[in-house]
């Protein structure tokens, strides 16, 4: 599904990713962990196509197509979804209106008709109950005055509505209390299927208790320095990142 080869990227002339290789297949859950400043958020931004970042080498292949040729909205149409670490506020635009616009713009790009209102409503109800969202939430301005938990829940709600092939969850656990974490993780798990894939970017092992990864990668100084299964996450939680840094130095 996703194949990243020797990806090098940076921002404002500063090199951050120094050759990333990663392959994600349908049905898989990958976790990317790493200390602050290791390049985790850069990686998610580059996959999603944020224009501030410069790609200096390598490529990203998504279902046989070179993603780097596409604009961020076109990537979204292909089925890539990024749950933002800091979702932005859009005053005066309701959650409903935003999601409706997002769904219909994607459909338009694929040459499909707008989703009929009753179908949209039915789908919204279904996904709302999955994420324990009430009606009043839908008519609020997007992310305006939302608590940290509400913002993240809103991200996963949008993901549920858009049904992406590949979802990247960038620090979705940050700012969440344990109940909100459980609801969000539960939502992600219910949306998982053999046809879609998830990349979870996180500092902590906590979220991975709920969303269990098939693979764990450690990102350090712009490179994936270690990969393993979920036990690697436990090891990191117990020992911190220092042993990896040391290992790098020795290696």
């Amino acid at each position: 599904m996703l194949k990243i080869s020797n990806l090098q990227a940076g921002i404002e002339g500063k090199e951050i990713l120094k050759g990333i290789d990663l392959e994600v297949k349908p049905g898989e859950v990958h976790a990317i962990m790493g200390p602050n400043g290791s390049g985790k958020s850069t990686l998610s931004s580059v996959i999603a196509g944020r224009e501030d970042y410069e790609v200096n080498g390598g490529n990203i292949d998504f279902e046989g197509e070179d993603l780097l040729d596409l604009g961020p909205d076109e990537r979204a149409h292909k089925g890539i979804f990024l749950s933002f670490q800091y979702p932005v506020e859009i005053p005066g635009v309701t959650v409903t209106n935003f999601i409706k616009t997002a769904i219909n713009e994607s459909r338009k790009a694929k040459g499909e008709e707008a989703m009929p209102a009753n179908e949209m409503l039915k789908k919204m109800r279904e996904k709302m109950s999955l994420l324990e969202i009430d009606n009043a939430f839908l008519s609020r301005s997007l992310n305006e005055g939302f608590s940290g938990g509400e913002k993240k829940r809103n991200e996963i709600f949008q993901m549920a509505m858009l049904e992406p092939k590949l979802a990247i969850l960038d620090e979705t656990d940050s700012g969440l209390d344990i109940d909100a974490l459980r609801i969000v993780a539960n939502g992600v798990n219910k949306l998982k299927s053999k046809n879609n894939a998830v990349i979870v970017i996180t500092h902590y092992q906590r979220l991975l208790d709920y969303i269990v990864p098939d693979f764990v990668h450690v990102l350090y100084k712009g490179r994936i320095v270690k990969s393993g299964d979920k036990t690697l996450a436990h090891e990191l939680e117990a020992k911190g990142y220092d042993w990896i840094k040391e290992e790098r130095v020795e290696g």
Partner: protein
Amino acid sequence: MKTEESYLEEVTASEYKYGFYTNIESDKVPPGLNEEVIRIISAKKNEPEWMLEWRLDAFRKFQKMTEPKWPNVTYPEPDLQAISYYAAPKKKKELESLDEVDPELLKTFEKLGISLDEQKRLTGVAMDVVVDSVSVATTFKAKLRELGIIFCSISEAIQEHPELVKKYLGTVVPKSDNYYAALNSAVFTDGSFCYIPKGVRCPMELSTYFRINEAGTGQFERTLVIADEASYVSYLEGCTAPMRDENQLHAAVVELVALDDAEIKYSTVQNWYPGDKEGKGGVYNFVTKRGLCERNAKISWTQVETGSAVTWKYPSCILKGENSVGEFYSVAVTNNYQQADTGTKMIHLGKNTKSTIISKGICAGKSNGSYRGLVKIGPRAENARNFSQCDSLLMGDGCGSHTFPYIETQNKSAKIEHEATTSKIGEDQIFYCQQRGIGEEEAIALIVNGYCKDVLNQLPMEFAVEAQKLLAISLEGSVG
């Protein structure tokens, strides 16, 4: 029942009128501004003596005035002697089909979602079928007449309802109010007149669209709306379709009178030609709009302004009567080299008067937008209240946005609140939308419409939908 005699009289009279009209259509007044020209205008319109005197008085006052320089706009002063102040209503050249219309214009119509029939009407394409709007207008007229509502051109009102015109014309915007209002008073050629009788709630949105006499409005438009005691009217002005005009200077005057317990809602969508991308051409729109509220009356101005090269305009309310309410909701968009200095005046004279100002400025390109507002509380205005919110949204780095709020209070019991924000459409916001599959242009439209929501919500439903599309089109290509 009409007697045969009166019927005959009517027929011959109108024939005469028609004949007289055709006669004068052939000549056009040469450019220039002087008393003689005003006499000609008045004569051509077959006006009564008092109207001519009124015009001449305005002209004499005008001659002692100078063009105001305080607005935050720059433009070459229009040469008033180079303008022809009376041209008989010209018939637009009829086109055979829409194929002959500028494709660029058609594209805009399409984006605005304007129906084919409407497109033909706007571009002057000959129509051989009876268009809906015509029959609708006729039905409407009958209904209005039944209720005693008068809705006609101001020229017609001067002929048919002189007592009303005499009583109210110039009472809200005096002839000498300002330079361009004085000019308008001297030379206005046409406009709209509306009277709602006591206790009548006008059952439909009145629109210049349905005006009986469409011809000859143009440059110096004059509008007078009178809502008698306990009546209600919602009035729509303008059009979202782009309006091109060969006249560069537009100086309209709008007067609203809301008597005791009456309510007037006045909505405007203004989309005059703003000039090209380099700032060449475009309409100068210098408008005076003001309403007077008697006891318990309410006047609400809502405007969406996207057009014109240079705009200055301050729809205002004089809150004379106790408990009267004034509202101003405005979206003003400037792009490319457009300049706008717009806002409102809320003059609180009566006790317990309330006013609300919501102003949303959007600046893009190399444009300049200013909000200028005055809240004045008179000595007798016990417990007057005002709330003002002035927001500006900037797009790109080349534009400027300014806020000039003035507050004058002569009564200590007044409560005035003023909030102001300035924000920029962030790349973060656009990227967020794009990530969800919403393209850049669509994202800007979404963000801008969200920002203007409080104002757009005040517009009648259909107008609001059109206005939303208009905003998006006005800002196309302004980020990136």
